[in-house]
């Protein structure tokens, strides 16, 4: 797929900016705080309807404006798609595809696919389990849009169950009066049903991603290292079967009942999942060197790119935010070879000097200054 134009209206620090892309690679160059990441964020929003930087629409709308809009013209194999996301201060955002307003936001997903790769992604390896859950959830959002709905439902059931647990009095004499085992049992069942759908989808996507990531990892590390990716769900998954997972879920809830009662929160379920990355059988999170961690993240990102390509049937976009200059020349070249001209790539940087001349050769170069984008003619 190919992003032809991007039109930002009252989005972040852009007042009204139309960008036309005319090369497979676009390098956005500019000083700090000029709007480079904001532009990538706009593309990320069209791909996932989420920003990794904020969950509030009012942060995305230009300060002082009531409304902000991102529109794009995307060339897909089957035709041109026009995407529009309208953000409103104080009311719900709306989405439109080819000028038609969509009732369900999830119908918007899957049209534009993009893989985002920024220097923050090292947190994927180094950070807490939450980082890895967001990562796998974001991947699923684009591959299986229905997943968004499942995850929302699960989160709602979880919040309801937590609220019920909190209502139970901590005073043992009062407890019996306020405790409603019949209601709790129903929330348990809801949580287990929805939670097992989350678990099974996460397991399946990681199964598909792992061999691709291993292949890339081998190539980048010159065949010297073996990568393993292990999904470690909070509820053990013995088989990819709804009944089996639900039973295990409910059993674990029983086991943890006393602890849940004291902590007054739900201790069982995919909101406590993790993913372990091992390099040569050693956890990369604790023991990986900086270089190993970078190689690992690069391999994961390339695997995302390939998996998305095979699911969508077309190469997705690649968004590289400040990351290229941080890769050494070997890794830069691995990346360049992997994407070639097939994956449209948007790259941000403060200095063109940091990367290989090959990158600059065939790229469109845009300068970004205080929310204004100009065609750079100096190179």
């Amino acid at each position: 797929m190919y992003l032809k134009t991007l039109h930002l209206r009252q989005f972040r620090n852009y007042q009204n900016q139309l960008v036309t892309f005319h090369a497979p690679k676009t390098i956005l160059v500019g000083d700090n705080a000029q709007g480079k990441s904001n532009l990538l964020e706009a593309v990320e929003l069209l791909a996932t309807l989420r920003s990794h930087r904020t969950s509030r629409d009012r942060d995305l709308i230009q300060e002082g404006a009531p409304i902000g809009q991102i529109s794009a013209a995307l060339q897909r194999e089957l035709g041109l798609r026009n995407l529009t996301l309208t953000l409103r201060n104080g009311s719900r955002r709306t989405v439109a595809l080819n000028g038609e307003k969509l009732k369900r936001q999830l119908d918007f997903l899957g049209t534009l696919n993009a893989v985002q790769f920024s220097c923050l992604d090292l947190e994927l390896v180094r950070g807490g389990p939450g980082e890895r859950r967001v990562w796998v959830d974001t991947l699923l959002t684009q591959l299986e849009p229905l997943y968004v709905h499942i995850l929302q439902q699960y989160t709602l059931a979880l919040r309801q169950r937590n609220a019920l647990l909190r209502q139970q009095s901590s005073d043992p004499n009062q407890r019996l009066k306020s405790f409603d085992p019949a209601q709790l049992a129903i929330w348990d069942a809801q949580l287990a049903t929805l939670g097992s759908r989350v678990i099974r989808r996460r397991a399946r996507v990681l199964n598909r991603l792992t061999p691709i990531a291993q292949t890339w990892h081998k190539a980048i590390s010159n065949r010297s290292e073996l990568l393993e990716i292990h999904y470690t769900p909070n509820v053990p998954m013995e088989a990819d079967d709804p009944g089996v997972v639900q039973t295990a879920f409910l059993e674990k809830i029983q086991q943890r009942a006393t602890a849940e009662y004291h902590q007054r929160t739900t201790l069982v379920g995919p909101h406590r999942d993790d993913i372990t990355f091992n390099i040569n059988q050693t956890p990369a999170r604790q023991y990986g060197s900086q270089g190993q961690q970078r190689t690992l993240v690069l391999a994961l990102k390339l695997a995302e790119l390939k998996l998305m390509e095979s699911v969508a049937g077309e190469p997705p976009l690649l968004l590289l935010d400040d990351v290229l200059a941080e890769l050494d020349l070997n890794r830069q070249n691995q990346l360049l070879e992997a994407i070639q001209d097939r994956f449209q790539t948007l790259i941000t940087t403060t200095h063109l000097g940091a990367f290989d001349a090959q990158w600059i050769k065939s790229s469109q170069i845009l300068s970004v200054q205080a929310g204004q984008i100009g065609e750079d003619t100096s190179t």
Partner: protein
Amino acid sequence: MEAKIQVGQCSICFHLSADAVCDICRSPNRDNQTLCVVADSRDVIALEKTREYKGKYHVLGGLISPMDGIGPEQLNISPLVHRVNKESIQEVIMAISPSIEGDTTTLYVGQLLKPFAKVTRIAFGLPMGGDLEYADEVTLARALEGRRELE
């Protein structure tokens, strides 16, 4: 906290009513052995528009939602159990839109009533979160017809 009968509500079914007992509860032409349980008075109005349903109603006055501090005690659930027990109801039809809170309410109420009557739920071809209120009459009538016994 007991559910209080408010002014403007039927004292039997809790549907909106200027009188103490509403027209539907008073009507001699309606099937006394079938009860349709809904969340809100608006759902009664929507179902009445289909002209397909001849039984009586019971309005819960909301859905179970711990986050909003709404438990079974805040809803008209005890009067419902009492009614089903006392009035020799044969079938209770749960007609609550599918959602996390709606399903929890359906299952909760269903379990309480199962010892006394056959409990069914309407078949929703509606998307999750689709409102009873906004469903067209044909869809609603079909949902009512295709009801299944609650597991």
